[in-house]
C-alpha cells in the first residue's frame, strides 16, 4: 500500500537546518493497522504529511498504491490524495461554519461527484459513525467525540484505501477515545489500511504493528503479522461498512 525508501526531509531557516526525516524507509501492506509512536519532534507528523502527499521531500522514493509519487504535479497528487487517502486529525479540523453534512461533503466536492452520489455516500458514512441524525448540526453543537466521528465520516465518505490518523484520540476523554478506536478498528477490518500516529502506548498496542520514530528514523519496528480476522477485498465502500456498522 505504502512504500517509502530512503526518504529525507529537511526544514531550513536562515540559521539552521533540521533533518525531520533521515533516509526513512517503511513498507505498509494493504489492510494493515500501523501505529507510529515516538517522542515529540521525532518526525512522526512529517512522515504522516509526506505519506499524505502534503509535503514535498528532498530525496528518496515513495510509492503509494504502486504509484511513484515523487515527481507528480500538484494536481495529480491532490487527485491521488482525494481518491486514496482519508485524514483524521487530533483537533478534528472541521469547518466551523459548515454543518455536519457539508463537512463530510468537502472531499467529495473535489472529486466532482454528482449530487445524488455524494448524498448517498455522506448519509452512509454518517450512519456508520452513528451521526445520521445530526446532519444539520454545526460542529459547535457537537461534543469532541462526535466531532471526531464526523471527521472519520468525512475520511470514510471518499472510500479511501488508506486512512492517516494523527493523534485521533488526543483531544478526547477515555470513553470517547475507546469508541473512536473501535470505529477505526471496524474500518480496518473492512479492508482500509490505517496508519495512526499516537503517543498513547495503550492505543498503539491495539494496532497490528508498531513502529517507533526517533530523530527522523525508524528505531524499532515489529514485523507485520496478518490480523486473525479475515478481511474482505477493499472497495466494499461505505455501503458495506454501513451494513457492518448497523
Amino acid at each position, binding site marked *: 500500500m505504502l512504500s517509502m525508501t530512503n526518504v529525507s526531509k529537511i526544514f531550513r531557516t536562515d540559521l539552521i537546518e533540521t533533518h525531520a526525516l533521515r533516509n526513512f524507509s517503511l513498507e505498509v501492506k494493504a489492510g494493515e493497522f500501523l501505529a507510529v509512536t515516538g517522542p515529540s519532534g521525532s518526525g512522526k*507528523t512529517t512522515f504522516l*504529511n509526506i505519506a*499524505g502527499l*502534503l*509535503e514535498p521531500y528532498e530525496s528518496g522514493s515513495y510509492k503509494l498504491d504502486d504509484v511513484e509519487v515523487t515527481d507528480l504535479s*500538484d*494536481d495529480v*497528487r*491532490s*487527485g491521488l*490524495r*482525494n*481518491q486514496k487517502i482519508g*485524514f483524521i*486529525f*487530533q*483537533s*478534528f*479540523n472541521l*469547518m466551523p*461554519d*459548515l454543518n455536519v453534512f457539508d463537512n463530510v461533503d*468537502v*472531499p467529495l*466536492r*473535489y*472529486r*466532482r461527484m454528482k449530487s445524488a452520489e455524494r448524498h448517498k455516500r455522506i448519509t452512509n458514512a454518517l450512519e456508520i459513525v452513528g451521526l445520521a441524525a445530526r446532519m444539520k448540526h454545526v460542529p459547535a453543537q457537537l461534543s469532541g467525540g462526535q466531532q471526531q466521528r464526523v471527521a472519520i465520516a*468525512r475520511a470514510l465518505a*471518499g472510500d479511501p484505501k488508506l486512512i492517516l490518523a*494523527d493523534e485521533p484520540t488526543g483531544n478526547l476523554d477515555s470513553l470517547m477515545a475507546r469508541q473512536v478506536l473501535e470505529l477505526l478498528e471496524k474500518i480496518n477490518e473492512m479492508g482500509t489500511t490505517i496508519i495512526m500516529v499516537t503517543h498513547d502506548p495503550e492505543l498503539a498496542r491495539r494496532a497490528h504493528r508498531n513502529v517507533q520514530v526517533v530523530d527522523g528514523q525508524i528505531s524499532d519496528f515489529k514485523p507485520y503479522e496478518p490480523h486473525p480476522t479475515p478481511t474482505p477485498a477493499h472497495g466494499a465502500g461505505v455501503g458495506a461498512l454501513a451494513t457492518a456498522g448497523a
Partner: protein
Amino acid sequence: MFAYYLELALRSFKRNPGLTALMVFAIALGISVCMITLTTYRAASANPAGDRSSILFAPSIDSWDPNQSYDDRDKTLAPTMLTYRDARALYASGIPDRKVIMYKSGGTYRRADKGMAPQYFATRMTTADFFAMFEVPFLYGGAWDAKADAGPDPVLVLSKKGNQEAFGGVNSIGKTVLFKNREFRVVGVLDDWEPMPKYFDVSNGAFQDLEDAYVPFSWGQVMELGSHGNTNCWKTEVIDSFQAFLNSECISFEAWVELRTAEKQRAYREFLDNYVVEQKKHGRFPRPLNNYLYDVDGWLERNQVVQDDNKAMLTMAFAFLAVCLVNTVGLLLAKFLNAAPSAGVRRALGASRRDIFWQHLTESGVVALAGGMVGGLLGLCGIWALRAWYGRFVDEATRALPFDEANFLICVAIAIAAGIAAGLYPAWRIGRAAPASYLKVQ
C-alpha cells in the same frame, strides 16, 4: 465547481460581513470617482462628427500680430477665427464640396401678432450649407438655399426650443417672426440636436448651448449685427462703424469646408497659401506663412477641448482607484491568510492548489462585482448631483453629463477586472500556502 466556489464565497461573506463591506466600499468608492470623472471626460472628448470627421475641415490662417504670436502656449499656432474679409474670401472658393462661414450673434425676437413675448434668442449667422454639412436634423421644413444666402432672403430656421417658445412647438413653417423688428419667415424647425462638444464653434465654448435661431450670414452686414461671441483684435485701428469693424483685422468669424477627396484637400491647402501670399502683397498677414487645415479631431485637439486638467483628473481618478484596490489587496490578503487553516484542511481533503486559487479568486470576483454595482450606483448619484447642483456654475461640461448606461457597464467591468486583479495575489498566496503547517493548529 464554480457554483461551489460561489457558495463558499457567500458563506465567507456571512462569516465576515464587516470586512466584506469594507472591501466592497473601497472598490465602490474608487469606481464611483472613476465613473464620474470618466463620464465628464467622455462628454468632453467625444467627436460628434463621426465618420464625417475626416472630410470636414476648419481653415486657420495666421493674420495675427507680427510681434506676438496668437497662442502663448504654442507660438506656432495660428488664430482659430477669421476676419470678416478673410471669411468672405474663403467662402468664395469653388474648391470645397460644401462651405460655411458663420459667427454668433443674437437679439430680441417677437411675433407681430403679439403671440410671443419679446425674447432674446442667441442666433447663428451662417450660410445654407451649415445644416447639411453638420447633419442637422429637421423636425419641420428644411434649410434655406444658396439663393437666399445671396439675397439675402428674410428667412430663418428655429431650433426646437426656439420654435417652442415662439410658436408653442407647432409646425411654424411659413409663419413669420420679428428679429430686431425685421420680419423673417420660418423655413425650417430643427429636431432634437445636441452635438457634444459643439465642435463647429469651439472658439465660443465647446460646451455652450446651441443657438435658438439660424439666420443667413449676409443679414449680419445688412442689419449690422455684431458678434455675441468672442472677438479678438491685435492691431491699433480706428473702428468707429460697423463697416470699419468688418474691414478691420479683428477676428470673430469661423469657416468650415467639406473636402471629400485628398485631391481637394491638397488643392484647398494650396488655395489658402496662395490667398495669404496674395494678401501679403497688400500689406496684410505680416507673419510668416503659417496656415493650417484641421479635420474635426485635429480641431478639437488644437483647441484643447479636452483640457489638460481634465486629463489630469482622469489620471488622478484612476490613481485613486489604484489606491482603493491596493487597500482591497491588503484586506483580501488578511482575510485569506486568516482562513489559511481552512484552506489547509481543504488541501488535505483533496483540493489542489488550483482549486484553492479559483475558490478565492471567485470570492474576489464577487466582492468586485458588488463593489462595481455599488460604485456604479454611487457614480450615477454623483453625476446626478453634479448636474443638479454644480453644473451651471462649475464646469460647462458637467451641465450636459449623460446618464450613460455604457459608462455604468464600463465601470462595473473595470471593477470586476480590477477586483479580480486585486484578488490574484492573495488567491495565489493562499494557494501556495503549505497545508501541513496549518493542520496542527486548526
